[in-house]
Structure formats: C-alpha cells, structure tokens
C-alpha cells in the first residue's frame, strides 16, 4: 500500500509539471497581452501624463517579467547596429522644429510653392481672368470649366519620411524591453554615433546610414567623412537626435530592478537594499540633457555616465557562462518555474496588488465551505434515496425518485438559481415568500452579532446557494448507490443473512449497504473538480466572494497570475482528491489491493 501511494505520488510529479507547462503556454499563446489594459491606459493625455503612464507600464512589465522573451533569451547577441536601428526609427519620428530644422523646412515650403506656380501656368492665368471685376455669369461658368480642364498639380514640399506608427511603437517597446542588456551599446551610441549621407545623395533622408565615428576614423564632432575616397556628409540633426535618444534611454534602461514588488513587505535588509536601488534609479533618471543643449553640458552628462559605467562594469561584462545562463534563465518561462518551485510563489495579483496566495486564501474559505457542505449534503440525500430506489426496485418509489432526480439533473443551475432568487428572496413580488436574503455570504452588519447569530445568519444565506449547488449531483450519486446496492443484494451472503431470519432492515443497512456503497466512493475524486469549478455560476448569482467569483473577475480583469494560481491550485487539489479516493477504495474493500 505504501509503495502504491509513493508510486502514485511520483507519477503526480510529471503530471503536475505538464499542468504548469500547459498553463504557461495557455497564458502566453492566447491573443491579447497580459496587462494590455494597463498599456491602453496611457492614451490621449498630455505629454507628462502619457510619459507617466508609459513609465507605469514599464514598471508593470518589469514586475511581471513581461519584458523578457518567453522561452529563450538571445539578447546577449544584440549589437550596436540593432540598437542604432531602433533609435533611428524613433529619431525619425521626433518633432521637427528643434536644431534649426524649422528654417530648412520653411525654405522647402517656399520652394514648393514657387514650383507649384511654375507648373500650373495655365491655371493661374485663368485664375487672373476670373478675378476681373466685370464678368458675365456665362463667361465665368465657361472660365471655370476651362480651369477645371486645365488641371492642377500641387508640388508638395519635401519632408523627411516618417516611419509607420506601428514600427515606431514596436521600436520603443523593443528597446524598452531590452532593458539593461543594451546599456554598453547605448553608451557607445551616445558617445560616437554619426549619421553619414553621401554628399550627392538623391534622397538624403533614406540613403544615409548610421556608423561609429571611431570606426570611420573621424572625431565625433566632425562634419564630413572620407570613406573609400568618397566624401560623406554627417547629418548633424539625426546624429544629435540619436545620441540624445541614447542618453534618454540610458536613464531608463540602466535602472536596476527593485527586489521588492508591489505589496511585498520584505525583511529590513531587503527594504534597505530596495531603497538603495530606488535612490540610485532616481539619480540615474536625472542624468540627461535637452535636445538643444550645448557641447559642454553634453560632455558633462556623458562624463557622469562614463564614471558610473566604470563603477558598474561588473553588471555588463559578458562571458560564455553568463550568456548561457541569460539565454536559459532570463526568460518568462524560467522565471515562472523558479517562482513556482523554488519560491513557492504565484506572483502578484494585478488587480489586488497583493500576492496571489493571499488573495486566493481570502476567497478560498467561502468556496471550501460551499463545496464541502454541498458534498456532504449530496451524499446524505443521495445515498438514502439510492437505497430506497434499490429496495423498491421498479416500484413507484423507484420511478418517482428517478424521475424527480432526472429533472433536477437536466435543470440548468443558473435557471433554477435565477428563479429561486426571483421568488424566494427579498426581490420577490410576493411578500410572504421573501424568505431568504438575495445575496452574499453573511449580512453586512453580522460582525456585531453573537457567534450563534452569525452562524444562523450564514446558514440562512447559504440555503439557496447550497440547494442550487447540490441538486444537480443527486441524480448521478443516487444512481450509483442504487446500482451498487442492486449488484450486492443478489449475492449469496445476503440470502444467507435473510435465511438466518434477520429483519429486512438489518439485512439491507448492515449487510448490503456497506458493500454496496463502495462504487460511490470512486465518485469522490471526480466530483471534486466539478465542485470547485461548478460554483462559478452560483457565486456569480448569489454574489459570494469565493474562488469562482474571484476567477470570474480575474478573467474580466486579465489578472493572469490569479487565473494561473486558481487553476494550478484546483488542479493540485483534484490530483490529491483522485489519489485519496483511490486509497479509500482500497481501505474500504479488502478485495482490492494495489500491491
């Protein structure tokens, strides 16, 4: 027996692993991102508000490890070019008007206007005729038609092309998610990024490309470069923008993760470390410069960063071993598994801002109460009914019980619950039928009452939910009890008992029922998930703050950690329940042995 239990427990390990993996896949594969609502929150407010929302979302992602890749992390392969490409995309979208671009654009606009006038000479000539004061309506109409036929070609001023909005958002998210893994690259870009354009480029905005000044052998402030004997012009505007963005990114990406998450208290030591990290992060946040800063202040800021980088070099040096560790462990999946198995931690609820364990524990007791009470109730009602049906097989009682329970079995819970709340509670139209409270686990003012009164109050509240939760399972249980007893009642030892002259009641209750009820034990394991899951509608209708309602709100709120926690916990309970019912099966029936 012990051996069997150990074997079963060991078999539970792969099952449980599969459950965890399945849940992880489910959460990460389904469309809609975790916390998508939090991102959407930063909509059309002013710049400061949207920056705040953006930072909030970044912290949110960091806390739930959503900034990491799902399965494997190859970010140590990122090089300077990758970072530059994303920064350039963002830079091309930056507002025009700084760095003397406005004047250039003005020139372009004037030029376009002149060109428009030159290409549409006929149109403008007719326009002049139309402006003449004495013009008959017919002539005017004729001129208008002519003007329409002449056509009009507008010459648009040349503006730098902007990337598509989706591309920009992607670039921002990507570089944000890369976090401190790209700090060295960002620092390099901030120092000596140059954007070079061929002097005779036909499309100056698209033909250029970014490069490192030191690789080109020029100083970071140079205005021209010689590559393979060809002269290239440095696009000072784009260069300045990308460098500026790199420093801006540094102030965010160089930050360290706080070790205490929302709602976590932690030890005094941890709190001290956490404070230290926060203050350092705040310091880093101020090390940036404006887009129109002069060379001296830029150099000053960069010097700060260089000194900081020299101090923190250890964080950013890479080795093969470290890269392998990053690849495997700096991922959502690894994080999920370590949290689960090493820290026994289900994460933080997005909605309640508290650890999922606590949230579940608060709600769990209501559901456990409901489930256990309903389980006991259903066995207490169903088993006697099953015995009655078996003893009076094919008689009126048997058929009556069968019919009523069948109706119960087919009656949808939510229908029955809705009708009961409609007629038997305070919301009923008929006054003398307002027996039960409409909803809740207990009255709101119950805390002031005595213990007995409170128990009574809870019991009064639970009558309808329990009835609704129980009636559906009666049919199956009583049918099992009936067939179990019928199988036994024809066996020899029952005939012997009757032949001994025992009364029919003793024969049935003492001899037959004990053996006949064994099959009903197996049902215990399979009713458990039904009980855990089935209460969602009951709790929804009767507004009981149990697991079902928690699950329901978590789904509506996209509170992924809570959903995972509830599913994990209920699956573990079910696994244990199945094991328990198997063991009890062997305990009750000596004929069954697992050895």
């Amino acid at each position, binding site marked *: 027996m012990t051996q069997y239990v150990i074997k079963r427990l060991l078999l539970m390990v792969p099952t449980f692993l599969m459950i965890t993996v399945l849940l992880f896949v*489910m959460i990460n594969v389904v469309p809609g991102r975790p916390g998508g609502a939090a991102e959407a929150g930063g909509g059309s407010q002013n710049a400061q508000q949207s920056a705040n929302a953006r930072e909030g979302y970044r912290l949110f992602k960091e806390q739930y490890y959503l900034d990491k890749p799902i399965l494997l992390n190859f970010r140590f392969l990122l090089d300077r070019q990758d970072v530059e490409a994303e920064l350039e995309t963002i830079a091309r979208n930056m507002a025009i008007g700084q760095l003397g671009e406005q004047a250039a654009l003005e020139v372009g606009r004037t030029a376009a206007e002149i060109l428009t006038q030159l290409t549409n000479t006929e149109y403008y000539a007719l326009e002049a005729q139309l402006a003449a004061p004495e013009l008959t309506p017919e002539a005017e109409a004729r001129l208008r038609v002519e003007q329409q036929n002449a056509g009009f070609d507008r010459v648009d001023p040349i503006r730098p092309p902007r990337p598509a909005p989706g591309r920009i958002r992607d670039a921002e998210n990507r570089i944000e998610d890369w976090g401190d893994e790209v700090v060295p690259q960002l620092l390099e870009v901030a120092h000596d990024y140059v954007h070079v354009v061929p002097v005779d480029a036909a499309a100056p905005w698209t033909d250029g490309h970014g490069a490192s000044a030191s690789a080109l052998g020029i100083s970071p402030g140079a205005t021209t470069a010689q590559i393979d004997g060809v002269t290239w012009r440095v696009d000072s505007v784009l260069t300045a923008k990308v460098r500026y963005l790199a420093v801006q990114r540094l102030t965010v990406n160089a930050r360290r993760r706080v070790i205490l998450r929302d709602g976590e208290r932690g030890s005094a030591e941890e709190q001290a470390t956490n404070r230290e990290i926060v203050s350092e992060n705040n310091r880093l946040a101020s090390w940036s410069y404006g887009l129109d800063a002069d060379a001296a202040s830029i150099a000053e800021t960069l010097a700060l960063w260089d000194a900081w980088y020299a101090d923190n070099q250890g964080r950013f040096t890479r080795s093969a071993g470290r890269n392998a560790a990053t690849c495997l462990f700096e991922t959502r999946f690894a994080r999920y598994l370590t949290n689960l198995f090493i820290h026994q931690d289900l994460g933080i609820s997005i909605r309640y801002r508290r650890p999922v364990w606590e949230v579940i524990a608060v709600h769990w007791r209501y559901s456990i109460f409901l489930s256990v009470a309903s389980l006991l109730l259903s066995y207490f009602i169903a088993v006697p009914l099953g015995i009655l049906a078996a003893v009076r097989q094919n008689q009126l009682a048997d058929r009556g019980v069968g019919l009523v329970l069948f109706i119960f079995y087919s*009656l949808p819970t939510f229908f029955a619950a809705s009708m009961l709340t409609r007629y038997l509670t305070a919301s009923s139209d008929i006054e003398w039928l307002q027996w039960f409270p409409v909803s809740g686990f207990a009255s709101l003012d119950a805390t002031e009452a005595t213990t007995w009164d409170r128990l009574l109050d809870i019991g009064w509240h639970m009558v309808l939910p329990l009835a609704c939760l129980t009636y559906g399972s009666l049919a199956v249980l009583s049918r099992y009890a009936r067939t179990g007893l019928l199988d036994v009642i024809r066996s020899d030892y029952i005939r012997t008992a009757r032949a001994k002259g025992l009364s029919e009641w003793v024969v049935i209750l003492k001899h037959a029922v004990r053996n006949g009820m064994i099959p009903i034990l197996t049902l215990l394991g399979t009713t458990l998930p039904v009980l855990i*899951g089935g209460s*969602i*509608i009951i709790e929804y209708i009767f507004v009981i703050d149990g697991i079902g309602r928690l*699950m329901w709100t978590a*789904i509506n709120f*996209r509170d992924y950690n809570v959903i995972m926690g509830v599913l994990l916990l*209920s699956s573990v309970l*079910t696994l244990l329940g199945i094991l328990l019912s198997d063991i009890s099966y062997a305990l009750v029936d000596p004929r069954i042995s697992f050895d």
Partner: protein
Amino acid sequence: MSAAPSKNYREYASYWSIVWEQFQKNRTAYASLWAIGLLFAIATFAPVFASKIPFYWRDESGLSFPWFRGLLFNRNVFDGAVDLFFNQLLVASPAALVTWLWLRRRARTMEVRHYARLERRVLLTWAAAFLIVFVVISQGMEPRTALLDYRARSWREGAEGFLFPPLRISYEDTLHGVAGTGVRNLLGIDNAGRDIFVRLIFGTRVSLSVGVIAVSIYIAIGTVLGAVAGYFGGKADLAIQRLVEVFLCFPSFFLILAIIGFLPQPSLIAVMVIIGLVGWTGPARLVRGEFLRLKGVDFVAAARACGFSDGRVIFRHILPNAVGPVLVNATFGVASAVLVESSLAFLGIGDPTLPSWGRILAYGRSTGDTPMMLIAGMAIFVTVSVFNLAGEGLRDALDPKLRK
C-alpha cells in the same frame, strides 16, 4: 444502418438493427428522439416562421422572390456560419426528402448488402456536396448588402402583392426598426426591443449547433487518441494517459471560461472549438478501454494475420465495435455542451446579438421579466432533457443484459 424493410433483412439482423429495436421499445427514449428531430426541424425551418423578408414581392419593377434568394446569398438573412448552415439544410431538405424516398423504394427490391453500400454512397455524396457548397458560400460571400426595407414598403402604395412569413421579424430587429409595420410579438419583447419568440426559435440553431459541433470535435480527438493509446500501448499509452490526467485535473468550466475570457471577441465558433478541445478526455478513456478489450479478441488477431495495416485494423475492424459507448457519451455530451454554452451566454460572454437562450435568460433576470426567464429556461431544460433521455435509452439499448 437504418431499418430497411426487406425480407432478407430479418436474416441479416445486424448488431445495430438489434440496438434500434431495443431503443424503440423504450417509449420515453423513442419519444425524445422524435423531440430531438423536432428541435432540429425548428432550427432548420426557423426562417419559414419568422423573417422580415417576404417570400414573394411584386411591385412596378416586377416579381421577385427575396426570401428564397436571401437564404443563401444575402448576409442580411443569414448572419453567420451557423445560420448559413441551417439555411442550407432548409434549402436542401426537399431534395434530401426525395432522395430518402427513392432509397426506401430501392430498399424493397435490393439485396441488403448492396443496399447498405448504396446507402453509404448516397450519404457520403450528400455530405460532401453539402460541405463544399457551405464552404464556397461562406468563404465567397461579400459583406452585407443593402436590402430593401420590405416591411416598411409593404405599407406604402408601391407594393402590389407580397407574402411574408407569419412573423415579419428577424431575431436582431429592435423596436425602432419595426414600429408600425404590422409586426406582432407573440411573447413580448426584451429590454432591447427584440422579439423573444423569434429569438427563442433562432436560439435553437445556436444551442444545437454548439452541442453537435463541439461534441463532434471532442469525439474525433478523443477517439483518435484513445485508439492510439489502447491499440499501441507502451509509451504512447503512457503519454496519452498522462495528458488525460492533466486535462481531468482542471475543472473544465473554469478552463473553458479562462480560455474564452482571453479571446478579444469570442465568436460562437470559438466557443464550439474550445468546448471541443477541453472535453476529449471522456471519449478517449472510453475508446482506450474498448480497444484494450478488443485487442485480444480473435477477429482482430485474424485481421492482423491477414497482414492488414494498423490503420485498417483500427478503423475498419476495432472501431466499429467500440462505437457504442462513444455514441452514448456523445449524446450526453450534447446535453452538457448546450448547458455550457448557455451558461457562458448567461455570464455575458460572447457576441451580445446572438440569440442564445442563456442570454435571453440573463436579460430576463436583469429586467425582472419572469416569463422571459421561464421561457428561455424551459427551452434549455427541454433540450438538455431530451438529449439526456435519448442517451439513457441508447445506453440501455446497447446493454445486452437489459435486452427484452
């Protein structure tokens, strides 16, 4: 194979004809089978009773038949794949009836074995043709086209002759669209001004299609996995058993709710597919058990000795003998799928315009409209009951111990 009245038939009484006879002896089960048929008929012929489009229409531009055209070729009449499917059934039903009568006539003169083959061929051809037409229409349809408001026009002078279905209303119509156009509401309207009775009969389509399609999906998955586990045993069996265990551990309604809750716009098809993906463990275990039992039986050994491939042994020799318990499971499964769908709709998940019974009940509950709750609840109850009753009858009919 259905009962073909033939002289040879008695001599060849197959397993299924015995089951069918047993089933007919159980009056409740037989009656509920008819009730299921009636439900399908209601679902199929719903547009005949209620549609805002007339059967025929005559005005100064001539005679037209908008209802007939609209059944398949106008998105204003069919509103989704489910409606299109039932509309197609409606269009095909006369031809199907003719085919069936023809088959019955042939059965009298043909030998049973030949007749069985003919019947199988006709059935397969029908199913294939139906599916092809369904795919072509549902994929090839352009989006909604503007439609004449026939109801409003029928009160003006232009209309010379027309014939509407008894209820001139579609299940999406709100009060604003139908006021003053001679529309009767048999069972009143809900809080959005939609006709409850029409939604009720169109709700049959939703419930039945979810039940049947979700169950077909999980029976297919479960049968294949169970067959593989039972037939090959060993590592395949171990892996599939673990997978079954994993799925058994989740409270299925939680799981369904969680997955559907994640989808941004859960359609009816998504509901079907997810119920199908979650529920396959039951049939898988059944089929595995049956395969374990049948694997050692002589006829399987004989089939293997003939050198038949594994696939042939599985599908042609073992599976037909293992189908009974699966069929029972499927019948009960339809009932529970109907329940799951209406529960989801009751909780407010899915397309709010869909005429689902659960949603009608939820509307009734939120507005305190008891008759509405009763009607929708009874519709669900009756549907679930008849499937459960038919399932019980089938189970008893398949049980050799209970044979009369």
